[in-house]
Structures are given as C-alpha cells and as structure tokens.
C-alpha cells in the first residue's frame, strides 16, 4: 500500500490523460463503432476492409492502444477514489489493488489484441 501511496502522482496523471482522451475521442468512437456501424448508418466507412486498414495502420494501432488503455486507467483511479468517498476504509487497499490491477490487465490485453491486428 505504501507503494500505491508513493505513486499517487502517477495514478493521477494517468487519470488526467485518460480523461483528456476520453473527452476528446470516446464519444465519437463509441457512437461510430457501437451504434452507427452496426445500424449500417456509416455507409462503408467501417466495412471490414476499411476498418481493418484504419485500425491496423501504425497510427491506428497507436491511437487505439492509447485511447483504450488510458481510459481504463482513468476509470480505475476514479472508481478507487469513489470507493474511498463511500467510506470503505478497511477496503482501501483492496480497492486500490483491484482497480489498478484490472487497469494493468486491461492495458496488457489491449496491447495484445491491438497488436494482433
């Protein structure tokens, strides 16, 4: 837990960066990929060939890895602190390990999945 406390500025900058990219990119990404594309409203913008070309390009891979992992770190930090606000003092170490652990796992999974493109 001491290490977690020592690294607070790191968790915060990941939170801030994640919030930054979430604000700038997530709404359009989610609208396009989760709603418009399945409904066929993007024309052939996200047809397999084009989507694969976009995502598998180097800028595409960097973009996807950065956005998804940073947003996961943002969510982890926010939820960990909110758990503290709700009064779970005894659960504080658990909240920290679980949230950052999941974010780390998510980052690894993101790099693996994006890398496999």
């Amino acid at each position, binding site marked *: 837990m001491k290490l977690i406390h020592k690294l607070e500025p790191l968790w915060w900058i990941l939170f801030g960066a994640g919030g930054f990219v979430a604000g700038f990119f997530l709404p359009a990404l*989610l609208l396009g990929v989760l709603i418009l594309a399945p409904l066929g409203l993007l024309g052939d913008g996200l047809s397999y060939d084009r989507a694969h070309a976009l995502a598998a390009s180097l800028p595409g891979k960097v973009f996807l890895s950065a956005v998804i992992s940073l*947003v996961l770190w943002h969510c982890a930090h926010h939820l960990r602190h909110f758990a503290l606000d709700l009064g779970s003092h005894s659960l504080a170490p658990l909240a920290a390990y679980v949230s950052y652990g999941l974010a780390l796992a998510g980052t690894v999974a993101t790099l693996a999945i994006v890398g496999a493109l």
Partner: protein
Amino acid sequence: MSAHAPAAPKTRTAPPRPPSGFPLGFYRYRNYVLFAATSVFMALGCFALLEAVYALSRGEAAWNAWLAAMAKPHFLVLSTVILLFTLYFAFRFGWVGRKIGAGRIGPVPRPPLPMLVLGVAPLGGFVTLWLILLAVLAGVLR
C-alpha cells in the same frame, strides 16, 4: 491559549456529521455520484471497443458477425446508455478541467483573458473534434 491561565479540560464532543445530502440527497452530490458512475460505463465502452478490435483481427466474417450482434436492440440500448454517460463525462470533465489551464503551471504563466474565455466554452472544441472523428470513421475524411 493564554500563557498564564491553565488549559481548561476539554468537554466531550459529538462525532463529526457527514455533509448533508451525501451521496444521493442533494442534487450536486447526486451529480458527483453520476460522474463517478461514468467510469463504470466508459470502462464497459472500452471493453466493447476491445471486442470490436478482436473481431476485426479474426477476419471479415467475425467482424460482420460482431456488427450484427451489436445491432440487436438490447445492445443498442446499452450502447446508448454508455454513450450518454460518456457525453456527460466529457462535458463535466471539460467544464471543470479548464481550471487547470486557467492557472500557472510551472514556468508557463496563466493564459491571457481571451484564452481563458475560450476555455470556458469547451463545447465547441469538443463537438468539432467529435464530428471530425466521425467523419473519419464514416469514410468521408481520409
């Protein structure tokens, strides 16, 4: 405390009372809870994006199957809820996040007044960027 008089014995105190209306009783604390909830839904959104990328990496059939699955009503509802929470997050984070840019950061001084006024309206900048990104996804750009 006076240096001459002995300190009076302290009387029993009542324990601190939490802020009134926290977490769900007062509308601003309720918004704070909603703001925290955005993290749950954004994480779900990230999970969905990862699913999409994974489907993309497994070939055309998998990608089209994933798109078809996401077009089912219950997933569309979930996606809409995720999107709404993400939008709420973006506005609130942008609205309060501008405060960081409003002050001195190390050697970089506070921005001049016109820049501060611009920072008060993150809405225009956000929406512009979102439209550009949507256009990229739709194949209209690049």
